[in-house]
Protein backbone atom coordinates (compact mmCIF):
# COMPACT_ATOMS: atom_id res chain seq x y z
CA UNK A 1 0.00 0.00 0.00
CA UNK A 2 1.37 3.37 -0.91
CA UNK A 3 1.05 6.27 1.47
CA UNK A 4 0.97 10.03 1.12
CA UNK A 5 3.91 12.19 2.13
CA UNK A 6 3.04 15.80 2.86
CA UNK A 7 5.85 18.37 2.84
CA UNK A 8 5.15 21.68 4.58
CA UNK A 9 7.43 24.33 3.13
CA UNK A 10 8.28 24.78 -0.56
CA UNK A 11 11.79 26.12 -0.10
CA UNK A 12 14.99 24.35 -1.08
CA UNK A 13 14.64 21.69 1.61
CA UNK A 14 11.05 20.96 0.54
CA UNK A 15 11.96 20.86 -3.15
CA UNK A 16 15.02 18.68 -2.55
CA UNK A 17 13.03 16.26 -0.41
CA UNK A 18 10.45 15.82 -3.18
CA UNK A 19 13.21 15.05 -5.67
CA UNK A 20 15.03 12.65 -3.35
CA UNK A 21 11.82 10.79 -2.48
CA UNK A 22 11.27 10.04 -6.17
CA UNK A 23 14.92 9.21 -6.70
CA UNK A 24 14.80 6.74 -3.83
CA UNK A 25 11.82 5.09 -5.45
CA UNK A 26 8.94 6.41 -3.33
CA UNK A 27 5.85 5.79 -5.46
CA UNK A 28 3.09 7.20 -3.24
CA UNK A 29 1.56 10.66 -3.42
CA UNK A 30 3.67 13.71 -2.58
CA UNK A 31 1.98 16.99 -1.67
CA UNK A 32 4.18 20.07 -1.35
CA UNK A 33 2.64 22.98 0.55
CA UNK A 34 4.16 26.48 0.35
CA UNK A 35 3.00 29.83 1.58
CA UNK A 36 4.81 31.79 -1.14
CA UNK A 37 3.29 31.91 -4.64
CA UNK A 38 6.48 30.45 -6.17
CA UNK A 39 7.59 26.91 -6.85
CA UNK A 40 10.74 26.10 -4.81
CA UNK A 41 13.57 28.47 -5.63
CA UNK A 42 17.19 29.03 -4.64
CA UNK A 43 17.69 31.60 -1.94
CA UNK A 44 21.47 32.24 -2.17
CA UNK A 45 21.20 34.21 -5.48
CA UNK A 46 18.62 36.57 -3.97
CA UNK A 47 21.26 38.76 -2.37
CA UNK A 48 23.74 38.15 -5.19
CA UNK A 49 23.14 37.58 -8.92
CA UNK A 50 19.34 37.77 -8.85
CA UNK A 51 19.39 41.09 -7.02
CA UNK A 52 22.05 42.37 -9.41
CA UNK A 53 19.77 41.50 -12.34
CA UNK A 54 22.29 38.97 -13.68
CA UNK A 55 20.11 35.89 -13.23
CA UNK A 56 16.55 35.67 -14.52
CA UNK A 57 13.77 34.24 -12.38
CA UNK A 58 13.50 30.98 -14.32
CA UNK A 59 17.11 30.20 -13.46
CA UNK A 60 16.52 30.99 -9.80
CA UNK A 61 13.87 28.29 -9.66
CA UNK A 62 15.25 25.14 -8.07
CA UNK A 63 13.53 22.95 -10.69
CA UNK A 64 11.54 23.97 -13.77
CA UNK A 65 7.73 23.99 -13.42
CA UNK A 66 7.49 20.80 -15.56
CA UNK A 67 9.45 18.89 -12.92
CA UNK A 68 6.45 18.80 -10.59
CA UNK A 69 4.23 17.35 -13.31
CA UNK A 70 6.75 14.81 -14.52
CA UNK A 71 7.56 13.64 -11.01
CA UNK A 72 3.94 13.84 -9.87
CA UNK A 73 4.44 16.23 -7.00
CA UNK A 74 1.19 17.98 -6.16
CA UNK A 75 1.74 21.66 -5.41
CA UNK A 76 -0.35 23.67 -2.96
CA UNK A 77 1.21 27.11 -3.25
CA UNK A 78 0.34 30.52 -1.85
CA UNK A 79 -1.31 28.86 1.11
CA UNK A 80 0.12 28.42 4.61
CA UNK A 81 -0.41 25.31 6.72
CA UNK A 82 -2.07 26.25 10.00
CA UNK A 83 -2.13 23.07 12.06
CA UNK A 84 -0.71 19.58 12.43
CA UNK A 85 -3.00 17.02 14.06
CA UNK A 86 -0.71 14.15 15.04
CA UNK A 87 -3.56 11.97 16.37
CA UNK A 88 -5.44 11.98 13.07
CA UNK A 89 -2.28 12.52 10.95
CA UNK A 90 -3.75 15.52 9.23
CA UNK A 91 -2.33 18.87 8.14
CA UNK A 92 -4.84 21.70 7.96
CA UNK A 93 -4.28 24.52 5.49
CA UNK A 94 -5.40 28.12 5.76
CA UNK A 95 -9.03 28.05 4.65
CA UNK A 96 -9.71 24.69 6.25
CA UNK A 97 -8.58 22.13 3.67
CA UNK A 98 -7.29 18.96 5.34
CA UNK A 99 -4.44 16.81 3.99
CA UNK A 100 -4.02 13.32 5.37
CA UNK A 101 -0.44 12.09 5.63
CA UNK A 102 1.29 8.80 6.19
CA UNK A 103 4.52 10.68 6.86
CA UNK A 104 5.09 14.41 7.16
CA UNK A 105 8.16 16.56 6.48
CA UNK A 106 8.34 19.97 8.12
CA UNK A 107 10.58 22.26 6.07
CA UNK A 108 9.23 25.60 7.20
CA UNK A 109 12.60 27.35 7.20
CA UNK A 110 12.97 30.67 8.91
CA UNK A 111 11.64 34.20 8.79
CA UNK A 112 13.55 37.45 9.12
CA UNK A 113 14.24 38.89 12.53
CA UNK A 114 12.42 42.21 12.62
CA UNK A 115 13.39 45.55 14.11
CA UNK A 116 10.67 46.77 16.41
CA UNK A 117 11.41 50.50 16.39
CA UNK A 118 9.45 53.61 15.34
CA UNK A 119 8.96 53.91 11.60
CA UNK A 120 9.88 50.29 10.81
CA UNK A 121 6.63 49.95 8.85
CA UNK A 122 7.35 52.93 6.58
CA UNK A 123 7.36 52.34 2.85
CA UNK A 124 11.00 52.04 1.77
CA UNK A 125 12.05 49.91 4.73
CA UNK A 126 12.80 46.41 3.46
CA UNK A 127 13.87 43.00 4.65
CA UNK A 128 15.40 40.30 2.45
CA UNK A 129 14.23 36.74 2.46
CA UNK A 130 12.00 36.17 -0.57
CA UNK A 131 11.75 36.92 -4.28
CA UNK A 132 9.03 39.46 -3.44
CA UNK A 133 11.42 41.18 -1.01
CA UNK A 134 14.09 41.49 -3.72
CA UNK A 135 11.59 42.86 -6.22
CA UNK A 136 10.58 45.48 -3.66
CA UNK A 137 14.21 46.44 -3.04
CA UNK A 138 15.02 46.63 -6.76
CA UNK A 139 12.30 49.24 -7.30
CA UNK A 140 14.56 51.64 -5.41
CA UNK A 141 17.64 50.94 -7.53
CA UNK A 142 18.44 54.29 -9.13
CA UNK A 143 21.82 55.92 -9.53
CA UNK A 144 22.49 58.31 -6.68
CA UNK A 145 19.72 56.89 -4.45
CA UNK A 146 20.64 56.69 -0.79
CA UNK A 147 20.56 53.26 0.86
CA UNK A 148 21.10 52.47 4.51
CA UNK A 149 21.81 48.80 5.21
CA UNK A 150 21.11 47.76 8.77
CA UNK A 151 23.35 44.85 9.75
CA UNK A 152 26.89 44.05 8.63
CA UNK A 153 26.42 40.30 8.25
CA UNK A 154 26.64 38.37 4.99
CA UNK A 155 23.23 39.50 3.75
CA UNK A 156 23.91 43.15 4.51
CA UNK A 157 27.36 43.11 2.93
CA UNK A 158 26.14 41.29 -0.19
CA UNK A 159 23.35 43.83 -0.63
CA UNK A 160 25.85 46.65 -0.16
CA UNK A 161 28.15 45.16 -2.81
CA UNK A 162 25.33 44.81 -5.35
CA UNK A 163 23.90 48.27 -4.65
CA UNK A 164 27.15 50.25 -4.74
CA UNK A 165 27.91 48.74 -8.16
CA UNK A 166 24.62 50.26 -9.32
CA UNK A 167 25.81 53.72 -8.37
CA UNK A 168 23.80 53.79 -5.15
CA UNK A 169 25.12 55.69 -2.15
CA UNK A 170 25.42 52.94 0.48
CA UNK A 171 25.93 53.16 4.23
CA UNK A 172 26.12 49.99 6.34
CA UNK A 173 25.31 50.24 10.04
CA UNK A 174 26.60 47.48 12.30
CA UNK A 175 25.80 47.54 15.99
CA UNK A 176 28.84 45.42 16.92
CA UNK A 177 32.38 46.84 16.86
CA UNK A 178 33.09 45.10 13.53
CA UNK A 179 31.24 43.53 10.60
CA UNK A 180 30.80 39.73 10.55
CA UNK A 181 31.73 39.71 14.25
CA UNK A 182 29.63 36.65 15.03
CA UNK A 183 31.24 34.52 12.33
CA UNK A 184 34.86 35.44 11.75
CA UNK A 185 38.15 36.82 13.08
CA UNK A 186 38.96 40.52 13.60
CA UNK A 187 41.45 40.27 10.69
CA UNK A 188 38.85 38.88 8.30
CA UNK A 189 36.35 41.55 9.41
CA UNK A 190 38.95 44.27 8.84
CA UNK A 191 39.61 42.89 5.37
CA UNK A 192 35.94 43.06 4.38
CA UNK A 193 35.54 46.53 5.89
CA UNK A 194 38.51 47.71 3.85
CA UNK A 195 37.29 46.19 0.59
CA UNK A 196 33.84 47.73 0.98
CA UNK A 197 35.33 51.10 1.89
CA UNK A 198 37.54 51.00 -1.22
CA UNK A 199 34.45 50.27 -3.30
CA UNK A 200 32.74 53.35 -1.88
CA UNK A 201 30.53 51.83 0.82
CA UNK A 202 30.46 53.73 4.11
CA UNK A 203 30.70 51.32 7.02
CA UNK A 204 29.77 52.47 10.53
CA UNK A 205 30.39 49.96 13.27
CA UNK A 206 29.21 50.31 16.83
CA UNK A 207 26.14 52.02 15.41
CA UNK A 208 22.58 50.85 15.86
CA UNK A 209 19.29 52.22 14.60
CA UNK A 210 16.72 53.86 16.86
CA UNK A 211 14.09 55.03 14.34
CA UNK A 212 13.10 55.34 10.71
CA UNK A 213 11.60 58.72 9.83
CA UNK A 214 9.47 59.97 6.99
CA UNK A 215 6.00 61.09 6.03
CA UNK A 216 4.60 57.81 4.74
CA UNK A 217 7.83 56.99 2.92
CA UNK A 218 11.28 56.63 4.46
CA UNK A 219 13.32 59.83 4.48
CA UNK A 220 15.94 59.28 7.15
CA UNK A 221 17.45 56.70 9.47
CA UNK A 222 18.20 57.80 13.03
CA UNK A 223 21.22 56.10 14.57
CA UNK A 224 22.08 55.20 18.14
CA UNK A 225 24.86 57.76 17.94
CA UNK A 226 22.28 60.48 17.37
CA UNK A 227 22.83 61.03 13.66
CA UNK A 228 20.05 61.43 11.12
CA UNK A 229 21.13 59.80 7.84
CA UNK A 230 19.05 60.78 4.80
CA UNK A 231 17.80 57.60 3.08
CA UNK A 232 15.60 56.72 0.11
CA UNK A 233 15.44 53.14 1.21
CA UNK A 234 16.76 50.80 3.86
CA UNK A 235 17.44 47.06 3.92
CA UNK A 236 17.49 45.31 7.28
CA UNK A 237 19.57 42.13 7.55
CA UNK A 238 19.84 41.25 11.22
CA UNK A 239 19.28 37.52 11.14
CA UNK A 240 16.49 35.01 10.95
CA UNK A 241 14.22 33.16 13.35
CA UNK A 242 13.32 29.49 12.79
CA UNK A 243 9.68 28.77 11.96
CA UNK A 244 8.87 26.23 14.65
CA UNK A 245 5.36 27.38 15.62
CA UNK A 246 3.46 24.60 13.81
CA UNK A 247 5.75 21.95 15.26
CA UNK A 248 5.59 23.46 18.73
CA UNK A 249 1.80 23.65 18.73
CA UNK A 250 1.74 20.01 17.65
CA UNK A 251 3.76 19.15 20.75
CA UNK A 252 7.00 18.14 19.02
CA UNK A 253 10.26 18.58 20.93
CA UNK A 254 11.74 22.04 20.29
CA UNK A 255 15.12 23.38 21.41
CA UNK A 256 16.33 26.28 19.28
CA UNK A 257 14.72 24.52 16.33
CA UNK A 258 12.74 21.34 15.85
CA UNK A 259 14.72 18.56 17.48
CA UNK A 260 15.62 15.82 14.98
CA UNK A 261 18.12 12.95 14.75
CA UNK A 262 20.72 12.22 12.01
CA UNK A 263 17.90 11.03 9.76
CA UNK A 264 15.82 14.16 10.26
CA UNK A 265 13.26 12.32 12.39
CA UNK A 266 11.46 14.38 15.04
CA UNK A 267 10.14 13.16 18.39
CA UNK A 268 7.16 11.76 16.40
CA UNK A 269 8.26 8.79 14.24
CA UNK A 270 5.85 9.80 11.46
CA UNK A 271 7.18 13.35 11.28
CA UNK A 272 10.54 14.52 9.89
CA UNK A 273 12.01 18.00 9.61
CA UNK A 274 14.83 19.53 7.56
CA UNK A 275 16.58 22.84 6.94
CA UNK A 276 16.88 26.12 8.83
CA UNK A 277 14.09 25.13 11.26
CA UNK A 278 15.85 22.10 12.77
CA UNK A 279 18.19 21.38 15.62
CA UNK A 280 20.23 18.32 14.72
CA UNK A 281 23.27 16.35 15.86
CA UNK A 282 26.05 17.56 13.54
CA UNK A 283 28.34 14.54 13.30
CA UNK A 284 31.61 16.25 12.21
CA UNK A 285 31.11 19.08 14.70
CA UNK A 286 30.27 16.69 17.52
CA UNK A 287 27.28 18.53 19.01
CA UNK A 288 23.71 19.61 18.34
CA UNK A 289 23.37 22.75 16.26
CA UNK A 290 20.92 24.71 14.16
CA UNK A 291 22.32 25.86 10.83
CA UNK A 292 21.10 28.52 8.44
CA UNK A 293 22.54 27.45 5.10
CA UNK A 294 21.61 25.95 1.78
CA UNK A 295 24.06 23.08 2.25
CA UNK A 296 22.24 22.09 5.41
CA UNK A 297 18.82 22.46 3.78
CA UNK A 298 19.79 20.21 0.87
CA UNK A 299 21.83 17.57 2.70
CA UNK A 300 19.37 17.27 5.56
CA UNK A 301 16.43 17.10 3.16
CA UNK A 302 18.19 14.30 1.27
CA UNK A 303 18.73 12.39 4.52
CA UNK A 304 15.17 12.89 5.73
CA UNK A 305 13.66 11.94 2.37
CA UNK A 306 15.85 8.84 2.12
CA UNK A 307 14.73 7.76 5.59
CA UNK A 308 11.08 8.43 4.74
CA UNK A 309 11.45 6.34 1.57
CA UNK A 310 12.88 3.49 3.62
CA UNK A 311 16.46 3.82 2.35
CA UNK A 312 18.22 5.68 5.19
CA UNK A 313 21.39 7.68 4.46
CA UNK A 314 22.23 9.64 7.61
CA UNK A 315 23.35 13.26 7.44
CA UNK A 316 27.06 13.50 8.27
CA UNK A 317 28.43 16.25 6.02
CA UNK A 318 30.80 19.00 7.14
CA UNK A 319 28.90 22.33 7.00
CA UNK A 320 29.96 24.68 4.22
CA UNK A 321 28.95 28.16 3.11
CA UNK A 322 29.99 30.85 0.68
CA UNK A 323 29.54 34.55 0.05
CA UNK A 324 30.14 36.53 -3.16
CA UNK A 325 31.04 40.20 -2.82
CA UNK A 326 32.58 42.12 -5.74
CA UNK A 327 35.22 39.84 -7.24
CA UNK A 328 35.73 38.06 -3.95
CA UNK A 329 34.65 34.54 -3.33
CA UNK A 330 34.58 33.70 0.34
CA UNK A 331 34.30 29.95 0.90
CA UNK A 332 33.84 28.61 4.40
CA UNK A 333 33.73 25.15 5.92
CA UNK A 334 33.19 23.87 9.45
CA UNK A 335 32.10 25.94 12.43
CA UNK A 336 34.66 28.08 14.21
CA UNK A 337 32.85 28.47 17.55
CA UNK A 338 35.20 27.71 20.41
CA UNK A 339 38.41 27.97 18.41
CA UNK A 340 41.56 28.65 20.43
CA UNK A 341 43.89 29.54 17.57
CA UNK A 342 43.42 31.20 14.18
CA UNK A 343 46.11 30.81 11.52
CA UNK A 344 46.44 33.17 8.58
CA UNK A 345 47.58 31.65 5.29
CA UNK A 346 48.40 33.99 2.42
CA UNK A 347 48.25 37.76 2.07
CA UNK A 348 45.04 39.76 2.61
CA UNK A 349 46.68 42.59 0.65
CA UNK A 350 46.71 40.32 -2.41
CA UNK A 351 43.03 39.47 -1.81
CA UNK A 352 43.93 35.81 -1.69
CA UNK A 353 44.23 34.32 1.76
CA UNK A 354 42.49 32.20 4.34
CA UNK A 355 42.02 31.71 8.04
CA UNK A 356 42.21 28.25 9.55
CA UNK A 357 40.61 27.78 12.95
CA UNK A 358 42.08 25.27 15.38
CA UNK A 359 40.76 23.87 18.61
CA UNK A 360 43.12 21.83 20.77
CA UNK A 361 45.34 21.46 17.74
CA UNK A 362 42.67 20.13 15.35
CA UNK A 363 41.35 22.04 12.34
CA UNK A 364 37.68 22.86 12.96
CA UNK A 365 36.96 25.52 10.33
CA UNK A 366 38.35 27.51 7.44
CA UNK A 367 37.40 30.82 5.80
CA UNK A 368 39.06 31.14 2.38
CA UNK A 369 39.07 34.29 0.24
CA UNK A 370 39.74 33.53 -3.45
CA UNK A 371 41.64 30.43 -2.28
CA UNK A 372 39.80 27.27 -3.38
CA UNK A 373 42.65 24.89 -2.46
CA UNK A 374 42.56 26.05 1.16
CA UNK A 375 38.80 25.58 1.22
CA UNK A 376 38.76 22.21 -0.55
CA UNK A 377 41.55 20.71 1.56
CA UNK A 378 40.17 22.47 4.63
CA UNK A 379 36.94 20.51 4.28
CA UNK A 380 38.87 17.26 4.32
CA UNK A 381 41.02 18.33 7.27
CA UNK A 382 37.89 19.22 9.25
CA UNK A 383 36.20 15.91 8.45
CA UNK A 384 39.38 14.08 9.52
CA UNK A 385 39.77 16.29 12.64
CA UNK A 386 43.34 16.60 11.42
CA UNK A 387 45.96 18.05 13.72
CA UNK A 388 48.14 20.22 11.50
CA UNK A 389 50.87 22.36 13.09
CA UNK A 390 49.91 26.06 12.80
CA UNK A 391 53.29 26.92 11.30
CA UNK A 392 52.65 24.40 8.51
CA UNK A 393 49.16 25.75 7.75
CA UNK A 394 50.52 29.27 7.58
CA UNK A 395 53.48 28.39 5.35
CA UNK A 396 52.83 29.06 1.66
CA UNK A 397 55.94 27.03 0.85
CA UNK A 398 53.99 23.95 1.89
CA UNK A 399 51.23 23.38 -0.70
CA UNK A 400 47.71 22.39 0.28
CA UNK A 401 48.25 19.20 -1.72
CA UNK A 402 51.18 18.29 0.51
CA UNK A 403 49.15 19.13 3.61
CA UNK A 404 46.31 16.96 2.35
CA UNK A 405 48.64 14.08 1.65
CA UNK A 406 50.27 14.22 5.04
CA UNK A 407 47.31 14.93 7.32
CA UNK A 408 44.19 13.30 5.85
Amino acid at each position, binding site marked *: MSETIVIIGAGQAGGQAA*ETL*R*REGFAGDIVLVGEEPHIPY*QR*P*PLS*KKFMAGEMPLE*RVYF*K*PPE*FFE*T*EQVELKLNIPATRIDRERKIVTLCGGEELAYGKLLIATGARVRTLDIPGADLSGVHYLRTIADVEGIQENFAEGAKLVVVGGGYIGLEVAAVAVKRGIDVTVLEVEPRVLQRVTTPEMSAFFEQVHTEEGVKIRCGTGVTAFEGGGKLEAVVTSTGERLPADFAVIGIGIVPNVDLAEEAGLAIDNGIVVDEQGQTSDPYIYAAGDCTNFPCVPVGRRIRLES*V*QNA*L*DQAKAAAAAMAGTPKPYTQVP*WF*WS*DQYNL*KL*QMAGLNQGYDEAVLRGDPGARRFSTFYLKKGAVIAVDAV*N*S*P*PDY*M*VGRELIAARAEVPPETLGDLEVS*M*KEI*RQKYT
Partner: protein
Amino acid sequence: MPKITYIEHNGTEHEVDVPEGWSVMEGAVKNMIPGIDADCGGACACATCHVYVDDAWREKTGTAEGMETSMLDFAEDVEENSRLSCQITVTPELDGLIVRMPRSQH
Protein backbone atom coordinates in the same frame (compact mmCIF):
# COMPACT_ATOMS: atom_id res chain seq x y z
CA MET B 1 17.53 24.83 -28.36
CA PRO B 2 20.93 23.08 -28.14
CA LYS B 3 20.79 19.38 -27.34
CA ILE B 4 23.18 17.99 -24.78
CA THR B 5 23.84 14.35 -24.04
CA TYR B 6 24.72 13.46 -20.45
CA ILE B 7 26.13 9.99 -19.88
CA GLU B 8 25.99 8.63 -16.35
CA HIS B 9 28.93 6.67 -14.97
CA ASN B 10 26.91 3.46 -15.46
CA GLY B 11 26.47 4.27 -19.16
CA THR B 12 22.86 5.52 -19.07
CA GLU B 13 22.41 8.29 -21.63
CA HIS B 14 20.13 11.31 -21.33
CA GLU B 15 19.64 13.66 -24.28
CA VAL B 16 17.89 16.91 -23.33
CA ASP B 17 17.30 20.40 -24.75
CA VAL B 18 19.03 23.08 -22.73
CA PRO B 19 18.22 26.78 -23.21
CA GLU B 20 21.03 29.02 -24.44
CA GLY B 21 22.58 31.00 -21.62
CA TRP B 22 22.05 28.24 -19.08
CA SER B 23 24.99 26.28 -17.78
CA VAL B 24 25.60 22.63 -18.66
CA MET B 25 25.07 21.92 -14.94
CA GLU B 26 21.61 23.50 -14.98
CA GLY B 27 20.65 21.40 -17.98
CA ALA B 28 21.28 18.28 -15.90
CA VAL B 29 19.97 19.36 -12.53
CA LYS B 30 16.76 20.87 -13.87
CA ASN B 31 16.04 17.74 -15.92
CA MET B 32 16.59 15.47 -12.94
CA ILE B 33 19.57 13.73 -14.51
CA PRO B 34 21.44 11.91 -11.75
CA GLY B 35 25.17 12.27 -11.24
CA ILE B 36 25.53 16.02 -10.91
CA ASP B 37 24.74 17.47 -7.48
CA ALA B 38 25.65 21.15 -7.84
CA ASP B 39 24.58 21.96 -4.31
CA CYS B 40 25.76 25.57 -4.55
CA GLY B 41 23.54 26.19 -7.57
CA GLY B 42 26.36 27.21 -9.87
CA ALA B 43 28.41 29.60 -7.77
CA CYS B 44 31.63 27.60 -8.31
CA ALA B 45 31.61 26.97 -4.57
CA CYS B 46 31.14 23.23 -4.13
CA ALA B 47 32.84 21.24 -6.94
CA THR B 48 29.98 18.74 -7.13
CA CYS B 49 29.14 19.27 -10.82
CA HIS B 50 32.30 17.67 -12.24
CA VAL B 51 31.97 16.25 -15.78
CA TYR B 52 34.27 14.90 -18.50
CA VAL B 53 33.83 16.72 -21.79
CA ASP B 54 33.83 14.42 -24.83
CA ASP B 55 37.15 14.85 -26.66
CA ALA B 56 35.45 16.05 -29.84
CA TRP B 57 33.95 18.99 -27.91
CA ARG B 58 36.86 20.16 -25.80
CA GLU B 59 37.83 22.95 -28.15
CA LYS B 60 34.32 24.38 -28.24
CA THR B 61 33.74 24.25 -24.48
CA GLY B 62 37.15 25.73 -23.76
CA THR B 63 39.21 24.74 -20.76
CA ALA B 64 38.95 25.49 -17.07
CA GLU B 65 40.37 28.78 -15.82
CA GLY B 66 41.07 30.50 -12.50
CA MET B 67 38.80 29.44 -9.65
CA GLU B 68 37.48 26.49 -11.58
CA THR B 69 40.96 25.06 -12.14
CA SER B 70 41.85 25.24 -8.50
CA MET B 71 38.51 23.74 -7.43
CA LEU B 72 39.02 20.89 -9.90
CA ASP B 73 42.53 20.30 -8.62
CA PHE B 74 40.97 18.88 -5.48
CA ALA B 75 38.02 16.97 -6.95
CA GLU B 76 38.13 13.17 -7.28
CA ASP B 77 39.19 11.34 -10.45
CA VAL B 78 40.14 14.47 -12.38
CA GLU B 79 41.27 13.99 -15.99
CA GLU B 80 42.51 16.34 -18.68
CA ASN B 81 38.98 16.81 -20.00
CA SER B 82 37.47 17.54 -16.58
CA ARG B 83 35.31 20.66 -16.15
CA LEU B 84 32.89 22.00 -13.59
CA SER B 85 29.68 21.96 -15.60
CA CYS B 86 28.36 25.10 -13.86
CA GLN B 87 31.13 27.01 -15.63
CA ILE B 88 30.22 25.92 -19.19
CA THR B 89 27.61 28.23 -20.69
CA VAL B 90 25.34 26.69 -23.32
CA THR B 91 25.64 28.36 -26.74
CA PRO B 92 24.36 27.35 -30.21
CA GLU B 93 27.89 26.02 -30.96
CA LEU B 94 27.45 23.45 -28.20
CA ASP B 95 24.44 21.82 -29.89
CA GLY B 96 25.24 18.10 -29.71
CA LEU B 97 27.66 18.35 -26.78
CA ILE B 98 28.41 15.11 -24.95
CA VAL B 99 29.56 15.03 -21.33
CA ARG B 100 30.18 12.08 -19.03
CA MET B 101 29.78 11.90 -15.27
CA PRO B 102 32.44 10.78 -12.80
CA ARG B 103 31.98 7.85 -10.43
CA SER B 104 31.00 10.20 -7.61
CA GLN B 105 30.86 13.92 -6.89
CA HIS B 106 32.25 13.54 -3.38
